[in-house]
């Protein structure tokens, strides 16, 4: 037994370059894109911490083609895209290959997604980039020997960025379809990304008090947007985390829905973070484990809940804005539908998000997943009949994404869902819509990136 072990341990196949402490100074770290708002904020946080990071923006057919070339084609589409995007970037010649590293997230659960980092390393070798180190971003204690260390202060800042990203995504999604002047909501998002980046650059923006102040200011500026409310179809988007969020993964789903005149509701990233935390505690409950660890999970949950409540309070001040549900409320929605032990991939959270949307009157849901996604056989497609038994009007469509699936095919199925939604909207229009923001100044006031125009709130 030990003999075999030694033999394989010596194999060059298993060697890979580690990301060392020194590389923190010498290397640029490339991060694949997933959520444009969140990731540009996280980019700033990491830069302030001294890492030279860059979120990749390359897309287009060459990303998919590169992925197909270097990743087993039966692997899930997100792996193919993420790895394709990174190798495509290395191919571009824009980066000094001796001083470039890649960063990828690793959840450490029972889904094959935990293996992306290994698939990336294999692909790098195949592509001739064996010297490029890969950094694992995880909260599960995997890859402990990495020179990239998630310190508690850094975690706090990254989470701050997640809160802000969720809030900006949520509010802009709520207002974009109704804005009087096209692009106002996005301009506001850009303004806030710039504003928060400035704060992050000076080491600010993530303390509890700063967050409270920023939440208030953000809510106010969005509430002040000029909008005209007309009844529109509301569509919730849930699914596998990468496909759900990444425009590259879901063929620009949000843009398509905007073009179809829908209000899009995409549950935030925070839910997934908290889901991972809860699963730690739940695992101990179900199968046994350290009580001490469990109390740590509890503390963490409380930490989050305080900030969640701050955000909800800030948004609730304005009748034109709808606050996100508390995570604990979303969680409760899965009760009796699926077990909380279901923790691989998006697990029970996906089911809970669908239930939560239905509960709040968003009957129309797109469940987006990679073709053949294992967890979604269970928590996505597997739960739809049960959800329909609780909400008979649930109008859910599951869409598979894959390098070879045609966009028309996907859009046609979404249009079917939308036809049903529109018909219902025509038959039961919602109560008379209210417009707001009449007193607000022109949105021009919200300066683009870097403009020292008067800020809507003092920090």
């Amino acid at each position, binding site marked *: 037994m030990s003999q075999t072990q030694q033999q394989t341990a010596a194999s060059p196949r*298993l060697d890979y370059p580690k990301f060392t402490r020194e590389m923190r100074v010498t290397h640029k770290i490339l991060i694949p894109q997933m959520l444009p708002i969140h990731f540009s904020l996280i980019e700033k946080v990491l830069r302030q911490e001294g890492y030279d990071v860059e979120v990749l923006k390359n897309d287009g057919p060459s990303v998919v083609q590169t992925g197909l070339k270097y990743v087993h084609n039966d692997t899930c589409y997100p792996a193919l895209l993420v790895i394709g995007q990174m190798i495509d970037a290395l191919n571009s010649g824009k980066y000094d290959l001796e001083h470039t590293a890649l960063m990828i997230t690793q959840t450490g659960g029972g889904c094959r997604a935990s293996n992306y980092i290994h698939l990336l390393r294999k692909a790098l070798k195949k592509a001739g980039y064996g010297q490029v180190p890969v950094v694992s971003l995880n909260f599960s204690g995997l890859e402990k020997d990495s020179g990239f260390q998630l310190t508690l202060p850094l975690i706090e800042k990254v989470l701050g960025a997640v809160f802000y990203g969720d809030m900006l995504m949520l509010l802009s999604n709520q207002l974009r379809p109704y804005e009087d002047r096209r692009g106002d909501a996005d301009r506001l998002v850009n303004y806030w990304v710039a504003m928060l980046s400035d704060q992050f650059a000076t080491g600010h923006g993530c303390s509890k008090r700063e967050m409270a102040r920023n939440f208030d200011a953000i809510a106010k500026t969005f509430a002040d947007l000029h909008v005209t409310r007309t009844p529109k179809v509301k569509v919730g988007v849930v699914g596998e985390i990468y496909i759900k969020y990444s425009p590259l993964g879901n063929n620009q789903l949000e843009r398509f829905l905007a073009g179809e005149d829908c209000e899009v509701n995409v549950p935030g990233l925070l839910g997934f973070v908290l889901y991972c935390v809860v699963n730690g505690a739940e695992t101990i409950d179900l199968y046994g484990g350290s009580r001490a660890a469990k109390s740590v999970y509890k503390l963490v949950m409380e930490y989050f809940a305080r900030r969640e409540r701050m955000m909800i309070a800030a948004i609730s001040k304005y009748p034109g804005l709808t606050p996100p549900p508390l995570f604990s409320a979303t969680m409760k929605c899965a009760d009796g539908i699926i077990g909380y032990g279901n923790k691989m991939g998006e697990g029970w959270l996906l089911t809970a998000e669908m239930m939560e949307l239905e509960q709040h009157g968003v009957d129309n849901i797109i469940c987006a997943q990679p073709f053949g996604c294992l967890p979604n056989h269970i928590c996505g497609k597997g739960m739809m009949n049960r959800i329909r038994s609780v909400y008979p009007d649930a109008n859910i469509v599951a869409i598979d994404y894959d390098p*070879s699936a045609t966009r028309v095919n996907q859009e046609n199925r979404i249009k079917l869902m939308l036809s049903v939604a529109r018909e219902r909207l025509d038959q039961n229009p919602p109560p008379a819509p209210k417009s707001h923001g009449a007193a607000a100044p022109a949105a021009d006031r919200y300066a683009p990136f870097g403009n020292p125009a008067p800020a809507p709130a003092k920090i």
Partner: protein
Amino acid sequence: MKIGLDIGSTTIKCVVLDKNDAIVYQSYERHFSHIVSKAAEVLRRIESEVTGRHAVLAISGSAGMGLADACGLPFVQEVFATRVAAQKLSPATDVIIELGGEDAKILFLTGGMDVRMNGSCAGGTGAFIDQMATLLKLTPEQMNEAALQSEKLYTIASRCGVFAKSDVQPLLNQGARKEDVAASIFAAVVNQTIGGLAQGRPIEGNVMYLGGPITFLSKLKASFDDALGVCGVLPENSLYYVALGAAFYSDEAFDLEDVTASLENYSATADYATSDPLFRTAEEYAAFAARHAKATVPRGELAQADGPVHIGIDAGSTTVKAAVIDGQGRLLYSSYQPNSGNPVPIIRAVLLELYQQRPDLQVASATATGYGEEIVKNAFSLDCGVVETVAHFTAAKHFMPDVDFVIDIGGQDMKCFKVEHGAISDIYLNEACSSGCGSFLQTFANALGYEVPEFARLGLFADRPADLGSRCTVFMNSSVKQAQKDGASVENISAGLSISVVKNALYKVIRASSPEELGRRIVVQGGTFYNEAVLRAFEKEMGVEVVRPDIAGLMGAFGAALHGRAKAAPGARSGLLDAAALQNFSHEVKAVTCNGCGNHCQLTVNLFDGGRRFISGNRCEKPVAGGKSGGELNMFEYKRGLLEAYRPVPGPRGRLGLPLGLNLYELLPFWHTFFTQLGFEVVTSGASSRELYLAGQGTIPSDTVCFPAKLLHGHIDRLCRMEGVDAIFYPCLTYNVNEGMGDNCYNCPVVAYYPEVVAANCRCLAGKKFIYDYIGIHRPRDFMAKMPVILAKYFDRITAGEVRRAAKAAYAEYEAHMQRIRAEGARVIGTARAQGRPIVVLSGRPYHLDPEVNHGIDKLICSQGAALVSEDSVAHLAGRQQVGVLNQWTYHSRLYAAAAYVTTQPDMELVQLVSFGCGVDAITTDEVKAILQEKGKIYTQIKIDEITNLGAVNIRLRSLFAAIGR
């Protein structure tokens, strides 16, 4: 007046309604992907003949979407349109089943409206039926006629067209009656539609059928009626419901002159994803053509040949090839033609022609290869058969003795070999998803009215080849239609298809991303490489220059002849039928079901004159020789026996049912002991069968999940029907037993949580006690503490002490069970070594034991003289492995360990069973392969699904044995 225009994937349908909504005009025609011009033509006709310039208009149909958007016309989604029409025209309808060219839909209208379309990977539709008809050399109408004459049904994969084709092709090649195959295809379409779309919802009440295929094919409708147990209605205007719905829904008036004008403007956009052109200049092409013209084999004249000749016959899946060589290996005669669904008469004609040309022909040897090897060999008394991989390799090596890599793309299959030191060092064969690429090019060219060479030539100088994806031919087919709609020319589609086929071979079959992986001396062959666009695409994609013999398509037959020449003793005379015997040749086919074992193989018995016969469709030698299948060295057989020994023991606490599927295949000893000790009578759902699967298939919510998981629905169904089963136990297990062989001990997401799917979708569980709690068996002490609480939810008075004792017994029994497996593994290995047999470690998951899942592959391996052990019987011999991936699943850790162990044993080979749709195996297969390859072992993967083409498996296994030198 109102116009409804339904532009589907293959046809365009139009209705015009007067103000009373009565139909005043209707038309139905194929558009051959010229949707824009056809739509404009239809509208102009209506304008001049029916409506005049102004009319209310709406467009529907999958192909109408982009067009409507671009021209600012109202679009009604087609399923929605159907519903609108149905509610108006036949309000009493409960369920509508509509089959179109590419999509299948089910609409539930009453009791909670629900509309469903097939997912992207389903092909039970018109285009599929057309493809199958082409395969049978019939028109769809003739196929319908034939199906009405059927006597029996074969099981044909209904997952998609590619899978079905790889089932149909061997059936035809083995001599199955077209009538039976046709009816089986319809049955497969029905299964696909019901299984894929009903997703747990019963189809009952007033059922209505719509769409072209069901309208035109009466047998298809009858098959639906049979399967659903209803008599559905095919309404008047069943072709026009979508168009009618669009017309009913329309409310916006247009000037038709403007509409046709904007349609004509739209046609020029040509916006689609592209690749680089194959050739930029005529000079490039000239140099390419000159280089390849040099690769020729030496030839001679049949008329002048003196001395005996060697004949090779390659009965391929789509073509039949014959080659005659002389003693020096010169090619004297060759024949290459389509097999037309039955190779026997074609070969007879070829042989007769040979005898006619040279009545004095002296045949020294005659050798068969290809899918039809066995039938040809038996029909014409050939001397020997050779597995096609060896035939192709022999030919390539003869052509280029120092070849490094051989790539053969035939009609149905791709075969690639890496060659080191003159011997095969690795074999790459396509699995189902990649099959049929070669013949797809042909079918497609023919459908557009071209011959293949002409079609290929069009692509050579295409300026913007369309990117058509590479997953499989079904996806390519729909990408082509899309590209055509986006304005791609035939030239660009031809080039794009060639590139797609090459990418499929490179990235799916060989999995090579750089030329170094292939070596320097590469021979490409197979009929598909006659296509210069494919040849060029290959060289461009890999950045290498390759050699294509001028007899690329004949290499199998040529190799067979060479093989025969090498085997023939000097002065040998072949036993091949002579001219007289060929004149009196007769061939008769009978279909029977073998009842030798639980597999119930569907046998095709071919009877020839003079008592020669050939039986196909068998998995073991039993029906052929009446002999045993080597069960004593079949570890799978042994493991199944172990599980069968866990019988119900009557107990005071009532009957508890366990579904025998997925992880229960390993944990049965554990749970059986646990609950028996607690006083339950533990019964299982027993062995899987086709009937069991069909009984559960209506409740499967995700059609892309693996087949072992789908089977679970049948097992639950059976348990629910069993007498006196008070409770069904099927727990969620995030973690498996911890064997300490990996970084974690997870189950895969499907194994871990399938009980949730069962609970949420199997209606038969209503009112039953279904126990599917989350349980941790990986921590025995916690298990003992938690289990009493869980059980108390369902049963009274089970004490903690009882649970503790039962758990201890259960863990002990599980350990004893695994120990028995290890001991038997050692015994089989010892016996095999004493007998000098090769040992195959058939590796997969515990549930691959199920004969319904593995399709008797274990028996097939043993029938080839090998001893078979399972991965769990040798994994402990290697122990925990360091691997290049995250080693976190218990079952998969065993794979890595077994692979590492095999590399230390010269007489062992590893064959990995992979379930179609198993996402985790996309990771394990690459790693297992890497472990084996690093130590010079050949990796063999067999992908299995609902149905598995055992012909292809057989080729794989024979190739493996041939390569290791048996």
